[in-house]
Every structure is written in C-alpha cells, then in structure tokens.
C-alpha cells in the first residue's frame, strides 16, 4: 500500500478497530443511524461556521443579518436551509438511534455508560436546536424563548435564579441573545464534540456493536473482516446518500422566518418547535410545576437508570429480543396510540367544560402523577406475573410506550392544534 494511503487508513483505524465482526455489518442491525447522526453533525459544523461569518448576535442586527444572509450572500439561503434541515433531521435520527439501541438490547452490561452518554448527547442536541432557534430574533424565536425561560421559573427552589441566569436579567433582551449565542456556537458544540469522541471510543471498547449470542458455540468467535474497506465503504455510502438527501431537501424547502420580534404581540397560536410538542401538550393538561419539572425529571431519571436495573436489556442483536417481544411491541404501539388520543380528547372536553378552576396543583398535578405511578406498577406486574413476559420485554414495552406517546403528542401539536391551541382539523 502506498504511504499516503497507509496513513489515511491508520487515521481511520484510530476510531475503528482494524477488523470488525462480520455480523455487525448487517444494515438491519444498526440501520446506519449512528453514522447518519455523525454525518449530520459534520454538516452542522460546516454550515454553522459559514453562517457565523454573516450573523450578528445583537438584538437590533440579528434579524437583518439573517435577511442579508438569505437574500444577498451567494448560496446563503441554501446554507441556512442545510443547517436547519440537518438539525431537525438529527433529532429524528437520534431518537430512532436510541430506539434501535433499546430494541436490540444494546444498553446491557458493558454498554451502560454509553447509553448514559447517548442520553446526554440527545439532551445537548435538543439544547443546541433550541438555542439556535432563538438566534434569528424573529417572532417565532422571541416567543419560544419567552415561554421556555418562563418554564424554568417553575422549577422549585432555584427556578427564579435559573431564569434570570439564562435571560441575563429579569427580562428578555440583549443579554439573553448573548447567552444563547455563546451556548449555541461555543459551549454546546464543544461539549458535544468531546462526548461524541467518548461515545465512539466506548463503542470500540465494548467490542463493537451488539452481536447475537450463540448458545451452541459460545467459545467460537464470530468471523471478522477488515474494517477498510468493508465497514468504511458502507459508512461512506450511507453518509453520502444522506448528504445528497439533505442538500436536495434544502433546495426545495425553505427555513421559516417570521417578522422581526415584537414583544407586544404573541403570534396565535405560538407553538413550540416540533421536538418540544410533547412538552407543549403536557403544559396544556398539567399544572406547570408538573409539566415543567416533575414529569420530565421522572422521565429522565427512568431513562438514565434503566440499564442499571438488572436484566432490563433484551437478548442482544435480535430486534425485540424474540418473536414474542415483537408481538408485545406491536400491541404496545397500538394501545399507546389509542390511549394517548383518548386521554387528550377526554381532557379536552374537561378543560372546555370547566367554568371554575379548582386547585389545579392537586387535580392536574398530584392526582395524574399518582395515577401514572400506580398504573405503571400495575401494568408491570401484570405483564411479568400474569402474562409471563420477561423484565427486559416489559421494560422495552415501557420505552416504546413513552416514545409512542411523545410521537402522538407531536403529531397532534404540529397538525391538529390551531388558534389558542384548540384542537382543529388541519
């Protein structure tokens, strides 16, 4: 091999091992989702750096600088669109990646820390999306930030302090934009980069992706093939196809930009960005302390802890663990959709009929939380004790249920909520 080729190969082999187990190359094991996420992060860094050259992070110039970017800078519109679509796709891809990791039993012993790091990555890229949303300083941005920083105010004990910290004062203004700008272009990308390297390294240290456990011949190592070209060529094919897709999307579909921020008038409806629609739906139904603090905390804690509970990971490398798991997953999805829709519709009637408001901290806080806890515990023991599902399968059903609920809420929020957030037909 020529020297130059050799050194490129060596560079690749810093991230990948020299050989990989052949079975982990199957596309329908990983769907290439992690690789796609890496590609999108790359596109984001590239287009972000370009836009940094034009964008002005001050309240009176931000909006104009975006107009200049999209109207006067050659390819400026395209670059903005690529950044926008990569960011939004990244959220979708990462959630799918999380789902595939959960459904192929890839958070078990040896991969626990990487699951936790993955969750932090997800948190970071949601924050990144959101902080970027503010930067154009248009109506969309202004009110999303008003709502979100007000949400911080409901956190017990340190809420007020946090809110002022992020706003850079009591009210939204130049300091808020400065904060979000620094978070978006320096703090979050830096942290993301470090965590990503750690994430990749841990995949390597776990011996690559999950493999199917063979009971008959546990000693025999599965056959390995060399990384270059087998893995690298596959990664390149997926990555390049994705880049082509994003670039095309960005030609035909423009990033929204509303009028310049107007603190006197909220747009009607003032919707959250789509990846926070789950939050928004919670806000419509629950007392703010529960929607903003208690439920997200419970959810995050559950996701963080799940690998540390014994036997919660499915048999590795097989989707849903088994045929029985697959059936359970299908049922959970169907029931999740119906249950979420029913709950939302019923509560919508309740909200509409309520003329006087009773103590919402109890009726729309403690009560639903209690019901949720009891229901989860009951469902768990019913599935495990009566229907003889394994703990891992039941936990899988739980994870699917959470994601299905969030998806249904997102679809409702995006297409079925109109002025004043009333339910409407699109």
């Amino acid at each position, binding site marked *: 091999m020529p020297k130059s080729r050799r050194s490129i190969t060596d560079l690749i082999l810093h991230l990948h091992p020299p050989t990989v187990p052949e079975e982990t190359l199957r596309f329908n094991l990983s769907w290439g989702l992690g690789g796609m996420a890496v590609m999108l992060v790359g596109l984001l860094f590239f287009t972000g750096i370009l836009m940094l050259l034009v964008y002005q992070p001050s309240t009176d110039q931000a909006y104009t600088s975006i107009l200049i970017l999209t109207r006067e800078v050659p390819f400026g519109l395209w670059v903005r669109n690529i950044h926008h679509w990569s960011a939004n796709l990244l959220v979708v891809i990462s959630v799918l990646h999380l789902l595939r990791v959960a459904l192929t039993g890839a958070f078990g012993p040896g991969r626990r820390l990487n699951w936790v790091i993955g969750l932090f990555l997800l948190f970071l890229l949601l924050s990144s999306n959101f902080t970027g949303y503010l930067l154009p300083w248009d109506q969309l941005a202004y009110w999303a930030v008003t*709502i979100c920083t007000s949400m911080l105010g409901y956190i017990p004990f340190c809420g007020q302090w946090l809110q002022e910290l992020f706003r850079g*004062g*009591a009210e939204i203004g130049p300091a808020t934009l400065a904060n979000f700008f620094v978070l978006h272009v320096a703090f979050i990308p830096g942290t993301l980069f470090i965590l990503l390297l750690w994430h990749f390294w841990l995949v390597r240290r776990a011996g690559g992706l999950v493999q199917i456990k063979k009971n008959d011949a546990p000693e025999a190592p599965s056959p390995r093939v060399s990384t270059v070209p087998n893995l690298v060529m596959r990664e390149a094919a997926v990555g390049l196809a994705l880049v082509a897709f994003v670039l095309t999307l960005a030609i035909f579909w423009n990033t929204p930009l509303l009028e310049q921020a107007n603190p006197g008038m909220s747009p009607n409806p003032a919707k959250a960005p789509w990846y926070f629609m789950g939050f*928004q739906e919670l806000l419509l139904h629950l*007392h703010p302390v529960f929607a903003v603090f208690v439920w997200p905390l419970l959810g995050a804690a559950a996701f963080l802890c799940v690998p540390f509970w014994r036997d919660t990971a499915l048999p590795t490398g097989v989707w849903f663990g088994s045929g029985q798991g697959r059936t359970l997953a299908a049922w959970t999805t169907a029931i999740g959709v119906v249950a979420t829709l029913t709950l939302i519709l019923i509560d919508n009637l309740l909200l509409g009929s309520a*003329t006087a408001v009773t103590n*919402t*901290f109890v009726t729309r806080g403690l009560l639903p939380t209690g019901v949720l806890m009891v229901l989860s515990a009951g469902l768990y023991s019913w599935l495990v004790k009566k229907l003889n599902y394994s703990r891992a399968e039941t936990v899988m059903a739980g994870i699917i249920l959470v994601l299905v609920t969030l998806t249904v809420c997102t679809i409702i929020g995006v297409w079925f909520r109109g002025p004043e*957030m009333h339910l409407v037909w699109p």
Partner: protein
Amino acid sequence: MVDNRNNDTPPGPNRRQFLNRLWAFFGVVALVEFGWLGLSFLNSRKERNKPVKTESIVTAGAVEQFTPATVTAVPLGQFYLACLADGSFLALSRTCTHLGCSVPWDEEKNQFVCPCHGSTFNLTGEVLSAPAPRPLDYYPVRIENGIVKVDISTPQKRGRFESTQATRI
C-alpha cells in the same frame, strides 16, 4: 526504561498519600475558583440588564373616557386598563401568568384568551380556565383630578381578585 522511583528512595506511602491528597485539594480549589469566577461574571449581567424605567407613572386618560365593563389596551405602558362593572379601575399586566405570552382581550367572548396554551381570564384578570396558575398581575392605579394614572414599576402578584386592587373614583 527503568522506573527510578521504585529502586532508589521510594517515597513512603504516607508521603505519597499526602501529596495525592494535596493535589486533589488544589484541584477542588481550582474548580471552586473557576466556578465562582463564572458565576460572578454571569450574575453581574443580571444587574446591568435591569430595565431602567425612567417614567414609571403612565397616564391612561380621563375617567370619562372609559365605560364600565370594558377593557382598554394602553400600549405605552404595556398593560390593560379594565373599567369594572361598578366603575372602578383595575390595571392588568398583559403578561400571561402561565408562561409569559402576551394576552389579547377578546371583545366578543368578553375575556382574555392566551394564544399560547389557551388560558382564559375574566375582566378582573381571574383565571377562567387552566393552565394559568394565578390571576393576571395588576398595577396600582391612582386617580388624580379625574385622570387615571398607573404605576407600572412593579407588577403585583395576587392569588385572587379583591376589590381593594381596583381604584374607585
């Protein structure tokens, strides 16, 4: 390479332990210093950003201008002047107590309807439907020589509407 430390004079376990602890201590001190530095930096911005209200008294208009049971927006002061059924005046903040959206007055429905999560408030600012947890904040109103004046320096939080919050002629 030969590791000299183990061959020559090995530092006693106590000494090594002491030094390790010392470095750990310095590390923690450094962290605290940087944390403090960052927080003071960020905190200073809170003060600087405090809105400077040079004129906190806003003149809304003459008493006769307002008919009972109506709401008038006063854009200059970013509030609503509600003239209640008994003719008393109540100045309401236009910021929704749920998450801070700007609440418009809906003439037809005779209530404030928040565009963000659909909270509704009546003429006196009390919550008609959730998710807003408390009534709209109000500002103290004074009536001098038949002119309605509102002090907008600090919005007043409240649990419910009481007639003392409104000002009679």
